[in-house]
Protein backbone atom coordinates (compact mmCIF):
# COMPACT_ATOMS: atom_id res chain seq x y z
CA UNK A 1 0.00 0.00 0.00
CA UNK A 2 2.83 2.32 0.89
CA UNK A 3 4.55 1.42 -2.33
CA UNK A 4 1.44 2.23 -4.33
CA UNK A 5 1.33 5.65 -2.75
CA UNK A 6 4.99 6.27 -3.55
CA UNK A 7 4.51 5.26 -7.15
CA UNK A 8 1.44 7.44 -7.46
CA UNK A 9 3.39 10.36 -6.11
CA UNK A 10 6.07 9.78 -8.65
CA UNK A 11 3.52 9.68 -11.41
CA UNK A 12 2.11 12.97 -10.14
CA UNK A 13 5.49 14.59 -9.93
CA UNK A 14 6.62 13.55 -13.36
CA UNK A 15 3.84 15.63 -14.85
CA UNK A 16 4.15 18.39 -12.30
CA UNK A 17 7.71 18.86 -13.48
CA UNK A 18 6.54 20.23 -16.82
CA UNK A 19 4.09 23.01 -16.05
CA UNK A 20 4.71 24.43 -19.51
CA UNK A 21 3.38 21.32 -21.15
CA UNK A 22 0.38 21.34 -18.82
CA UNK A 23 -0.48 24.92 -19.71
CA UNK A 24 -0.07 24.22 -23.41
CA UNK A 25 -2.28 21.16 -23.19
CA UNK A 26 -4.90 23.04 -21.20
CA UNK A 27 -4.81 25.77 -23.80
CA UNK A 28 -5.41 23.31 -26.61
CA UNK A 29 -8.34 21.79 -24.74
CA UNK A 30 -9.80 25.24 -24.14
CA UNK A 31 -9.51 26.13 -27.83
CA UNK A 32 -11.32 22.97 -28.83
CA UNK A 33 -13.77 23.51 -25.99
CA UNK A 34 -14.81 26.78 -27.58
CA UNK A 35 -15.00 25.39 -31.08
CA UNK A 36 -17.03 22.32 -30.23
CA UNK A 37 -19.29 24.32 -27.91
CA UNK A 38 -20.18 26.70 -30.73
CA UNK A 39 -20.84 23.80 -33.04
CA UNK A 40 -23.19 22.19 -30.56
CA UNK A 41 -24.95 25.47 -29.86
CA UNK A 42 -25.68 25.68 -33.54
CA UNK A 43 -26.88 22.11 -33.54
CA UNK A 44 -29.30 22.78 -30.73
CA UNK A 45 -30.96 25.56 -32.64
CA UNK A 46 -32.79 22.83 -34.42
CA UNK A 47 -33.59 20.48 -31.57
CA UNK A 48 -34.27 20.76 -27.86
CA UNK A 49 -33.08 17.38 -26.74
CA UNK A 50 -30.74 14.99 -28.43
CA UNK A 51 -30.05 11.60 -26.97
CA UNK A 52 -31.40 12.75 -23.64
CA UNK A 53 -29.08 15.80 -23.53
CA UNK A 54 -30.45 19.31 -23.63
CA UNK A 55 -28.25 22.19 -24.74
CA UNK A 56 -26.88 22.84 -21.25
CA UNK A 57 -26.03 19.16 -20.88
CA UNK A 58 -24.31 19.20 -24.25
CA UNK A 59 -22.12 22.19 -23.43
CA UNK A 60 -21.31 20.64 -20.09
CA UNK A 61 -20.37 17.55 -22.06
CA UNK A 62 -17.93 19.52 -24.19
CA UNK A 63 -16.08 21.08 -21.29
CA UNK A 64 -16.08 17.89 -19.27
CA UNK A 65 -14.82 15.77 -22.13
CA UNK A 66 -12.06 18.21 -22.97
CA UNK A 67 -11.14 18.39 -19.31
CA UNK A 68 -11.23 14.67 -18.66
CA UNK A 69 -9.46 13.73 -21.87
CA UNK A 70 -6.06 14.16 -20.33
CA UNK A 71 -7.14 12.50 -17.09
CA UNK A 72 -8.14 9.29 -18.83
CA UNK A 73 -5.27 9.56 -21.25
CA UNK A 74 -7.03 9.75 -24.59
CA UNK A 75 -3.68 10.86 -25.94
CA UNK A 76 -0.33 10.77 -24.33
CA UNK A 77 2.76 8.84 -23.48
CA UNK A 78 0.79 6.15 -21.69
CA UNK A 79 0.09 4.53 -25.04
CA UNK A 80 3.76 4.05 -25.82
CA UNK A 81 5.91 4.12 -22.76
CA UNK A 82 5.58 0.55 -21.69
CA UNK A 83 5.74 -0.71 -25.26
CA UNK A 84 8.98 1.15 -25.76
CA UNK A 85 10.43 -0.29 -22.58
CA UNK A 86 9.50 -3.76 -23.71
CA UNK A 87 11.26 -3.31 -26.99
CA UNK A 88 14.42 -1.76 -25.60
CA UNK A 89 14.56 -4.50 -23.03
CA UNK A 90 14.34 -2.14 -20.08
CA UNK A 91 11.27 -3.99 -18.95
CA UNK A 92 13.49 -6.86 -17.92
CA UNK A 93 14.77 -4.73 -15.05
CA UNK A 94 11.22 -3.88 -14.08
CA UNK A 95 10.28 -7.54 -14.03
CA UNK A 96 13.11 -8.32 -11.68
CA UNK A 97 12.00 -5.82 -9.11
CA UNK A 98 9.97 -6.94 -6.11
CA UNK A 99 6.81 -5.31 -7.38
CA UNK A 100 4.25 -6.33 -9.90
CA UNK A 101 4.69 -4.40 -13.12
CA UNK A 102 1.00 -4.02 -13.81
CA UNK A 103 0.16 -2.80 -10.34
CA UNK A 104 3.09 -0.42 -10.39
CA UNK A 105 2.04 1.00 -13.73
CA UNK A 106 -1.49 1.47 -12.43
CA UNK A 107 -0.33 3.27 -9.32
CA UNK A 108 1.87 5.54 -11.42
CA UNK A 109 -1.01 6.21 -13.78
CA UNK A 110 -3.33 7.07 -10.92
CA UNK A 111 -0.81 9.64 -9.74
CA UNK A 112 -0.68 11.12 -13.19
CA UNK A 113 -4.48 11.21 -13.38
CA UNK A 114 -4.56 12.97 -10.05
CA UNK A 115 -2.28 15.69 -11.30
CA UNK A 116 -4.36 16.16 -14.40
CA UNK A 117 -7.62 16.28 -12.49
CA UNK A 118 -6.25 19.19 -10.50
CA UNK A 119 -4.48 21.08 -13.25
CA UNK A 120 -6.32 20.23 -16.44
CA UNK A 121 -9.85 19.04 -15.65
CA UNK A 122 -10.71 21.48 -12.89
CA UNK A 123 -9.50 24.67 -14.64
CA UNK A 124 -11.14 23.49 -17.85
CA UNK A 125 -14.43 22.88 -16.10
CA UNK A 126 -14.28 26.15 -14.22
CA UNK A 127 -13.72 28.04 -17.45
CA UNK A 128 -16.59 26.29 -19.14
CA UNK A 129 -18.89 26.96 -16.24
CA UNK A 130 -17.98 30.64 -16.23
CA UNK A 131 -18.24 31.29 -19.93
CA UNK A 132 -21.16 29.13 -20.91
CA UNK A 133 -24.41 28.02 -19.39
CA UNK A 134 -23.94 24.46 -18.41
CA UNK A 135 -25.68 21.89 -16.32
CA UNK A 136 -24.41 21.77 -12.78
CA UNK A 137 -25.74 19.05 -10.51
CA UNK A 138 -27.41 20.31 -7.38
CA UNK A 139 -27.26 17.18 -5.27
CA UNK A 140 -23.90 16.41 -3.68
CA UNK A 141 -24.75 12.75 -4.16
CA UNK A 142 -24.45 13.14 -7.89
CA UNK A 143 -21.01 14.73 -7.48
CA UNK A 144 -19.82 11.82 -5.39
CA UNK A 145 -21.08 9.31 -7.90
CA UNK A 146 -19.43 11.35 -10.64
CA UNK A 147 -16.11 11.26 -8.80
CA UNK A 148 -16.42 7.51 -8.38
CA UNK A 149 -17.23 7.15 -12.05
CA UNK A 150 -14.18 9.18 -13.04
CA UNK A 151 -11.99 7.02 -10.83
CA UNK A 152 -13.34 3.89 -12.46
CA UNK A 153 -12.89 5.47 -15.89
CA UNK A 154 -9.22 6.03 -15.13
CA UNK A 155 -8.78 2.36 -14.27
CA UNK A 156 -10.64 1.19 -17.37
CA UNK A 157 -8.58 3.52 -19.55
CA UNK A 158 -5.43 2.19 -17.99
CA UNK A 159 -6.61 -1.34 -18.69
CA UNK A 160 -7.08 -0.58 -22.37
CA UNK A 161 -3.75 1.16 -22.72
CA UNK A 162 -1.92 -1.54 -20.82
CA UNK A 163 -3.28 -4.27 -23.06
CA UNK A 164 -2.42 -2.31 -26.19
CA UNK A 165 1.10 -1.69 -24.94
CA UNK A 166 1.56 -5.41 -24.37
CA UNK A 167 1.30 -6.13 -28.08
CA UNK A 168 4.88 -4.93 -28.24
CA UNK A 169 5.90 -8.28 -26.82
CA UNK A 170 4.81 -9.86 -30.05
CA UNK A 171 4.94 -7.14 -32.68
CA UNK A 172 8.17 -5.48 -33.71
CA UNK A 173 6.45 -2.47 -35.24
CA UNK A 174 3.83 -1.72 -32.62
CA UNK A 175 3.14 1.79 -33.80
CA UNK A 176 0.46 0.85 -36.31
CA UNK A 177 -1.77 -1.02 -33.84
CA UNK A 178 -1.22 1.65 -31.20
CA UNK A 179 -2.29 4.45 -33.52
CA UNK A 180 -5.32 2.43 -34.53
CA UNK A 181 -6.21 1.84 -30.90
CA UNK A 182 -5.90 5.53 -30.11
CA UNK A 183 -8.20 6.39 -33.00
CA UNK A 184 -10.72 3.75 -31.97
CA UNK A 185 -10.65 4.97 -28.42
CA UNK A 186 -11.08 8.53 -29.58
CA UNK A 187 -14.29 7.80 -31.39
CA UNK A 188 -15.76 5.13 -29.17
CA UNK A 189 -15.18 6.87 -25.88
CA UNK A 190 -17.24 9.80 -27.00
CA UNK A 191 -14.34 12.22 -27.13
CA UNK A 192 -15.34 13.57 -30.51
CA UNK A 193 -19.12 13.41 -30.30
CA UNK A 194 -21.30 12.25 -27.43
CA UNK A 195 -22.23 8.66 -28.03
CA UNK A 196 -25.78 9.56 -27.09
CA UNK A 197 -25.98 11.45 -30.36
CA UNK A 198 -25.76 8.23 -32.27
CA UNK A 199 -29.17 7.09 -33.48
CA UNK A 200 -31.29 4.53 -31.71
CA UNK A 201 -29.87 1.13 -31.00
CA UNK A 202 -26.36 2.22 -31.93
CA UNK A 203 -26.36 4.56 -28.96
CA UNK A 204 -27.08 1.72 -26.56
CA UNK A 205 -24.59 -0.68 -28.11
CA UNK A 206 -21.82 1.87 -28.15
CA UNK A 207 -22.30 2.75 -24.52
CA UNK A 208 -21.71 -0.83 -23.47
CA UNK A 209 -18.12 -1.03 -24.70
CA UNK A 210 -15.14 -0.50 -22.42
CA UNK A 211 -14.25 2.56 -24.47
CA UNK A 212 -17.48 4.23 -23.48
CA UNK A 213 -16.68 3.54 -19.86
CA UNK A 214 -13.69 5.81 -20.25
CA UNK A 215 -15.42 9.09 -20.99
CA UNK A 216 -19.08 8.81 -21.89
CA UNK A 217 -20.00 6.95 -18.72
CA UNK A 218 -18.79 9.49 -16.17
CA UNK A 219 -20.31 12.35 -18.15
CA UNK A 220 -23.60 10.49 -18.30
CA UNK A 221 -23.49 10.18 -14.53
CA UNK A 222 -22.77 13.87 -14.20
CA UNK A 223 -25.58 14.90 -16.52
CA UNK A 224 -27.97 12.43 -14.97
CA UNK A 225 -28.77 10.34 -18.01
CA UNK A 226 -27.03 7.04 -17.35
CA UNK A 227 -27.58 4.13 -19.68
CA UNK A 228 -30.77 2.36 -18.77
CA UNK A 229 -31.63 5.11 -16.32
CA UNK A 230 -29.58 3.58 -13.53
CA UNK A 231 -26.39 5.19 -12.26
CA UNK A 232 -25.64 2.11 -10.22
CA UNK A 233 -25.78 0.02 -13.38
CA UNK A 234 -23.32 2.29 -15.16
CA UNK A 235 -20.89 2.21 -12.27
CA UNK A 236 -21.23 -1.54 -12.10
CA UNK A 237 -20.53 -1.78 -15.84
CA UNK A 238 -17.43 0.37 -15.44
CA UNK A 239 -16.24 -1.72 -12.52
CA UNK A 240 -16.78 -4.90 -14.48
CA UNK A 241 -14.75 -3.63 -17.38
CA UNK A 242 -12.05 -2.44 -15.02
CA UNK A 243 -11.74 -5.87 -13.48
CA UNK A 244 -11.97 -7.73 -16.78
CA UNK A 245 -9.30 -5.58 -18.41
CA UNK A 246 -7.05 -5.83 -15.39
CA UNK A 247 -7.35 -9.59 -15.38
CA UNK A 248 -6.73 -9.79 -19.11
CA UNK A 249 -3.73 -7.55 -18.67
CA UNK A 250 -2.34 -9.78 -15.97
CA UNK A 251 -2.70 -12.88 -18.12
CA UNK A 252 -1.20 -11.25 -21.17
CA UNK A 253 1.68 -9.86 -19.17
CA UNK A 254 2.43 -13.31 -17.86
CA UNK A 255 2.37 -14.67 -21.39
CA UNK A 256 4.61 -11.89 -22.60
CA UNK A 257 7.04 -12.37 -19.73
CA UNK A 258 7.25 -16.05 -20.48
CA UNK A 259 8.06 -15.25 -24.06
CA UNK A 260 10.69 -12.77 -22.98
CA UNK A 261 12.33 -15.25 -20.67
CA UNK A 262 12.32 -18.00 -23.28
CA UNK A 263 13.70 -15.81 -26.01
CA UNK A 264 16.16 -14.05 -23.80
CA UNK A 265 14.64 -10.65 -24.41
Amino acid at each position, binding site marked *: MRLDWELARRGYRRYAAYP*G*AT*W*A*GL*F*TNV*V*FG*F*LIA*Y*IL*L*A*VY*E*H*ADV*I*GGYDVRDAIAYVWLSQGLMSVVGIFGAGWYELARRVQTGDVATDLQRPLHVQRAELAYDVGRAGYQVLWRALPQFALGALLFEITIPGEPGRWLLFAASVALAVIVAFGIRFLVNLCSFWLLDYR*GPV*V*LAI*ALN*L*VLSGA*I*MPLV*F*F*PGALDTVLRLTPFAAVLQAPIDVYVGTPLGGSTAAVLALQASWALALYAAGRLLLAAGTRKLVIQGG
Partner: protein
Amino acid sequence: MRALAAIYVRLVGARVRSQLEYRLSTALQLVGVGILTATDFVAIAVIFANVPELGEWSLGEVAFLYALATISFALTDIAIGHLDLFPQMIREGTFDQILVRPLPSLLQVVAADFALRRLGKALQGLAVLAFALTIVDVDWTVGRALAIPLAIAAGAVIYGAVWIALATVAFWIVDAIELVNAFTYGGSFLSQYPLGIFARWLRGLVVFVVPLAFVAYFPALYVLDKDDELGLPRALSFASPFVATLAALAAGAVWRNAVRHYRSAGG
Protein backbone atom coordinates in the same frame (compact mmCIF):
# COMPACT_ATOMS: atom_id res chain seq x y z
CA MET B 1 13.29 31.03 -58.16
CA ARG B 2 13.30 28.15 -60.56
CA ALA B 3 16.60 26.95 -59.21
CA LEU B 4 15.11 26.86 -55.72
CA ALA B 5 12.10 24.92 -56.93
CA ALA B 6 14.41 22.45 -58.65
CA ILE B 7 16.40 21.98 -55.48
CA TYR B 8 13.23 21.50 -53.49
CA VAL B 9 12.11 18.77 -55.83
CA ARG B 10 15.46 17.09 -55.57
CA LEU B 11 15.63 17.19 -51.78
CA VAL B 12 12.06 16.05 -51.37
CA GLY B 13 12.58 13.43 -54.07
CA ALA B 14 15.19 11.78 -51.89
CA ARG B 15 12.67 11.50 -49.03
CA VAL B 16 9.94 10.23 -51.31
CA ARG B 17 12.23 7.63 -52.83
CA SER B 18 13.13 6.24 -49.46
CA GLN B 19 9.44 6.03 -48.53
CA LEU B 20 8.60 4.26 -51.76
CA GLU B 21 11.19 1.65 -50.98
CA TYR B 22 8.83 0.41 -48.30
CA ARG B 23 5.90 0.40 -50.64
CA LEU B 24 3.69 -1.91 -48.65
CA SER B 25 4.24 -0.16 -45.37
CA THR B 26 3.59 3.24 -46.92
CA ALA B 27 0.43 1.99 -48.60
CA LEU B 28 -0.87 0.52 -45.37
CA GLN B 29 -0.13 3.69 -43.50
CA LEU B 30 -1.90 5.64 -46.20
CA VAL B 31 -5.02 3.54 -45.84
CA GLY B 32 -4.76 3.77 -42.08
CA VAL B 33 -4.61 7.54 -42.18
CA GLY B 34 -7.60 7.62 -44.46
CA ILE B 35 -9.64 5.52 -42.07
CA LEU B 36 -8.56 7.52 -39.07
CA THR B 37 -9.45 10.83 -40.60
CA ALA B 38 -12.81 9.42 -41.59
CA THR B 39 -13.64 9.58 -37.89
CA ASP B 40 -13.57 13.34 -38.33
CA PHE B 41 -16.47 13.10 -40.67
CA VAL B 42 -18.34 10.75 -38.36
CA ALA B 43 -18.91 13.73 -36.10
CA ILE B 44 -20.62 15.62 -38.89
CA ALA B 45 -22.62 12.59 -39.93
CA VAL B 46 -23.83 12.11 -36.37
CA ILE B 47 -24.88 15.73 -36.12
CA PHE B 48 -26.98 15.47 -39.22
CA ALA B 49 -28.52 12.24 -38.04
CA ASN B 50 -30.17 14.40 -35.43
CA VAL B 51 -30.83 17.79 -37.02
CA PRO B 52 -31.55 18.90 -40.58
CA GLU B 53 -29.29 21.93 -40.61
CA LEU B 54 -26.18 23.36 -39.01
CA GLY B 55 -26.49 27.12 -38.96
CA GLU B 56 -28.17 27.45 -42.31
CA TRP B 57 -26.15 24.75 -43.98
CA SER B 58 -27.41 21.37 -45.07
CA LEU B 59 -25.48 18.12 -44.79
CA GLY B 60 -24.29 18.29 -48.38
CA GLU B 61 -23.16 21.87 -47.97
CA VAL B 62 -21.32 21.17 -44.73
CA ALA B 63 -19.76 18.10 -46.31
CA PHE B 64 -18.56 20.24 -49.19
CA LEU B 65 -17.04 22.74 -46.79
CA TYR B 66 -15.44 19.97 -44.77
CA ALA B 67 -14.01 18.40 -47.92
CA LEU B 68 -12.37 21.60 -49.18
CA ALA B 69 -10.83 22.26 -45.79
CA THR B 70 -9.69 18.69 -45.34
CA ILE B 71 -8.06 18.31 -48.74
CA SER B 72 -6.25 21.63 -48.38
CA PHE B 73 -5.04 20.76 -44.94
CA ALA B 74 -3.94 17.32 -46.04
CA LEU B 75 -1.82 18.77 -48.83
CA THR B 76 -0.16 21.13 -46.40
CA ASP B 77 0.28 18.35 -43.89
CA ILE B 78 2.04 16.23 -46.49
CA ALA B 79 4.44 19.01 -47.36
CA ILE B 80 5.18 20.54 -43.98
CA GLY B 81 3.58 18.35 -41.34
CA HIS B 82 7.08 17.65 -40.07
CA LEU B 83 7.17 21.16 -38.63
CA ASP B 84 5.85 19.50 -35.49
CA LEU B 85 9.40 18.26 -35.04
CA PHE B 86 10.96 21.63 -35.75
CA PRO B 87 11.73 22.35 -32.08
CA GLN B 88 13.75 19.16 -32.07
CA MET B 89 15.77 20.51 -34.97
CA ILE B 90 16.65 23.55 -32.97
CA ARG B 91 17.39 21.69 -29.79
CA GLU B 92 19.67 19.18 -31.52
CA GLY B 93 21.57 21.79 -33.45
CA THR B 94 20.40 20.56 -36.84
CA PHE B 95 19.31 24.08 -37.66
CA ASP B 96 22.91 25.25 -37.39
CA GLN B 97 23.79 22.71 -40.03
CA ILE B 98 21.13 24.28 -42.20
CA LEU B 99 22.62 27.73 -41.80
CA VAL B 100 25.95 26.49 -43.06
CA ARG B 101 24.51 25.49 -46.43
CA PRO B 102 24.15 27.83 -49.39
CA LEU B 103 20.37 27.65 -49.44
CA PRO B 104 17.61 29.66 -47.78
CA SER B 105 16.87 28.17 -44.37
CA LEU B 106 13.11 28.02 -44.86
CA LEU B 107 13.50 26.05 -48.05
CA GLN B 108 15.66 23.51 -46.28
CA VAL B 109 13.28 23.15 -43.35
CA VAL B 110 10.29 22.75 -45.65
CA ALA B 111 12.15 20.27 -47.87
CA ALA B 112 13.19 18.14 -44.92
CA ASP B 113 10.34 15.70 -45.39
CA PHE B 114 7.33 14.84 -47.50
CA ALA B 115 4.96 12.43 -45.82
CA LEU B 116 3.28 10.32 -48.49
CA ARG B 117 1.17 8.52 -45.92
CA ARG B 118 -0.80 11.69 -45.23
CA LEU B 119 -2.16 11.44 -48.73
CA GLY B 120 -4.74 9.18 -47.09
CA LYS B 121 -6.33 12.24 -45.55
CA ALA B 122 -6.57 13.93 -48.94
CA LEU B 123 -8.17 10.85 -50.43
CA GLN B 124 -10.72 10.74 -47.65
CA GLY B 125 -11.44 14.41 -48.33
CA LEU B 126 -11.92 13.67 -52.00
CA ALA B 127 -14.37 10.91 -51.14
CA VAL B 128 -16.39 13.30 -49.02
CA LEU B 129 -16.22 15.89 -51.80
CA ALA B 130 -17.64 13.41 -54.27
CA PHE B 131 -20.37 12.53 -51.79
CA ALA B 132 -21.18 16.20 -51.21
CA LEU B 133 -21.42 16.99 -54.90
CA THR B 134 -23.88 14.19 -55.44
CA ILE B 135 -26.35 15.41 -52.85
CA VAL B 136 -25.95 19.12 -53.28
CA ASP B 137 -27.51 21.14 -56.06
CA VAL B 138 -24.79 23.24 -57.66
CA ASP B 139 -25.49 25.74 -60.41
CA TRP B 140 -22.44 24.77 -62.39
CA THR B 141 -20.45 27.30 -64.39
CA VAL B 142 -16.87 27.15 -65.60
CA GLY B 143 -15.99 29.55 -62.86
CA ARG B 144 -17.50 27.38 -60.20
CA ALA B 145 -15.80 24.30 -61.52
CA LEU B 146 -12.42 25.99 -61.54
CA ALA B 147 -13.02 27.50 -58.14
CA ILE B 148 -12.72 24.12 -56.47
CA PRO B 149 -9.13 23.21 -57.39
CA LEU B 150 -8.15 26.85 -57.04
CA ALA B 151 -9.61 27.03 -53.57
CA ILE B 152 -7.86 23.83 -52.57
CA ALA B 153 -4.52 25.11 -53.80
CA ALA B 154 -4.96 28.53 -52.22
CA GLY B 155 -6.21 26.93 -49.04
CA ALA B 156 -3.14 24.75 -48.79
CA VAL B 157 -0.92 27.80 -49.17
CA ILE B 158 -2.84 29.71 -46.50
CA TYR B 159 -2.62 26.82 -44.05
CA GLY B 160 1.06 26.51 -44.86
CA ALA B 161 1.72 30.19 -44.28
CA VAL B 162 -0.11 30.16 -40.96
CA TRP B 163 1.66 27.02 -39.85
CA ILE B 164 5.09 28.33 -40.74
CA ALA B 165 4.47 31.67 -39.09
CA LEU B 166 3.29 29.95 -35.92
CA ALA B 167 6.18 27.48 -35.93
CA THR B 168 8.70 30.32 -35.73
CA VAL B 169 7.70 30.67 -32.11
CA ALA B 170 10.15 27.82 -31.52
CA PHE B 171 12.99 30.24 -32.19
CA TRP B 172 12.01 32.12 -29.08
CA ILE B 173 10.64 29.48 -26.79
CA VAL B 174 11.61 26.05 -28.00
CA ASP B 175 8.84 24.16 -26.25
CA ALA B 176 6.04 26.48 -27.21
CA ILE B 177 5.23 24.25 -30.15
CA GLU B 178 2.43 22.65 -28.13
CA LEU B 179 0.73 25.98 -27.96
CA VAL B 180 1.13 26.39 -31.68
CA ASN B 181 -0.48 23.04 -32.28
CA ALA B 182 -3.60 24.31 -30.58
CA PHE B 183 -3.84 26.95 -33.26
CA THR B 184 -2.90 24.89 -36.29
CA TYR B 185 -5.10 21.90 -35.50
CA GLY B 186 -7.77 24.06 -33.96
CA GLY B 187 -7.70 26.28 -37.00
CA SER B 188 -8.02 23.36 -39.36
CA PHE B 189 -10.92 21.99 -37.31
CA LEU B 190 -12.65 25.35 -37.36
CA SER B 191 -12.44 25.76 -41.12
CA GLN B 192 -14.38 22.55 -41.61
CA TYR B 193 -17.53 24.17 -40.25
CA PRO B 194 -19.70 27.09 -41.43
CA LEU B 195 -18.25 30.29 -40.11
CA GLY B 196 -21.61 31.61 -39.01
CA ILE B 197 -21.92 29.29 -36.05
CA PHE B 198 -18.93 30.74 -34.28
CA ALA B 199 -18.91 33.80 -32.05
CA ARG B 200 -18.24 37.20 -33.56
CA TRP B 201 -14.77 37.64 -32.18
CA LEU B 202 -13.74 34.28 -33.57
CA ARG B 203 -15.19 35.08 -36.96
CA GLY B 204 -13.35 38.37 -37.04
CA LEU B 205 -10.14 36.64 -36.10
CA VAL B 206 -10.26 34.12 -38.92
CA VAL B 207 -11.37 36.61 -41.54
CA PHE B 208 -9.13 39.56 -40.81
CA VAL B 209 -6.20 38.29 -38.80
CA VAL B 210 -5.46 34.66 -39.51
CA PRO B 211 -7.27 34.27 -42.83
CA LEU B 212 -8.52 30.74 -42.39
CA ALA B 213 -11.97 31.73 -43.57
CA PHE B 214 -10.54 31.98 -47.07
CA VAL B 215 -9.48 28.37 -47.14
CA ALA B 216 -12.91 26.83 -47.53
CA TYR B 217 -15.68 29.09 -46.28
CA PHE B 218 -15.61 31.88 -48.84
CA PRO B 219 -14.93 29.65 -51.83
CA ALA B 220 -17.79 27.43 -50.65
CA LEU B 221 -20.12 30.43 -50.55
CA TYR B 222 -19.33 31.05 -54.17
CA VAL B 223 -19.71 27.50 -55.42
CA LEU B 224 -22.84 26.83 -53.39
CA ASP B 225 -24.30 30.24 -54.19
CA LYS B 226 -24.90 31.17 -50.60
CA ASP B 227 -24.71 34.50 -48.90
CA ASP B 228 -22.52 35.09 -45.93
CA GLU B 229 -24.68 35.35 -42.83
CA LEU B 230 -22.78 38.38 -41.69
CA GLY B 231 -23.31 40.21 -44.90
CA LEU B 232 -19.72 40.32 -46.01
CA PRO B 233 -19.38 41.08 -49.73
CA ARG B 234 -19.52 38.23 -52.22
CA ALA B 235 -16.34 39.47 -53.79
CA LEU B 236 -14.42 37.94 -50.94
CA SER B 237 -15.11 34.53 -52.39
CA PHE B 238 -12.66 35.30 -55.14
CA ALA B 239 -10.04 36.65 -52.81
CA SER B 240 -8.50 33.33 -51.84
CA PRO B 241 -5.58 33.41 -54.28
CA PHE B 242 -4.72 36.97 -53.29
CA VAL B 243 -5.02 36.18 -49.63
CA ALA B 244 -2.82 33.14 -50.17
CA THR B 245 -0.14 35.24 -51.84
CA LEU B 246 -0.23 37.84 -49.09
CA ALA B 247 -0.14 35.16 -46.43
CA ALA B 248 2.87 33.52 -48.05
CA LEU B 249 4.73 36.82 -48.17
CA ALA B 250 3.85 37.55 -44.57
CA ALA B 251 5.01 34.12 -43.47
CA GLY B 252 8.31 34.64 -45.28
CA ALA B 253 8.83 37.92 -43.47
CA VAL B 254 7.98 36.39 -40.11
CA TRP B 255 10.44 33.58 -40.78
CA ARG B 256 13.26 35.88 -41.78
CA ASN B 257 12.74 37.95 -38.69
CA ALA B 258 12.74 34.88 -36.51
CA VAL B 259 15.98 33.59 -38.01
CA ARG B 260 17.54 36.98 -37.47
CA HIS B 261 16.63 36.68 -33.81
CA TYR B 262 18.06 33.15 -33.64
CA ARG B 263 21.33 34.28 -35.16
CA SER B 264 21.81 37.08 -32.70
CA ALA B 265 20.37 35.57 -29.56
CA GLY B 266 22.69 32.65 -29.58
CA GLY B 267 21.38 29.67 -31.41
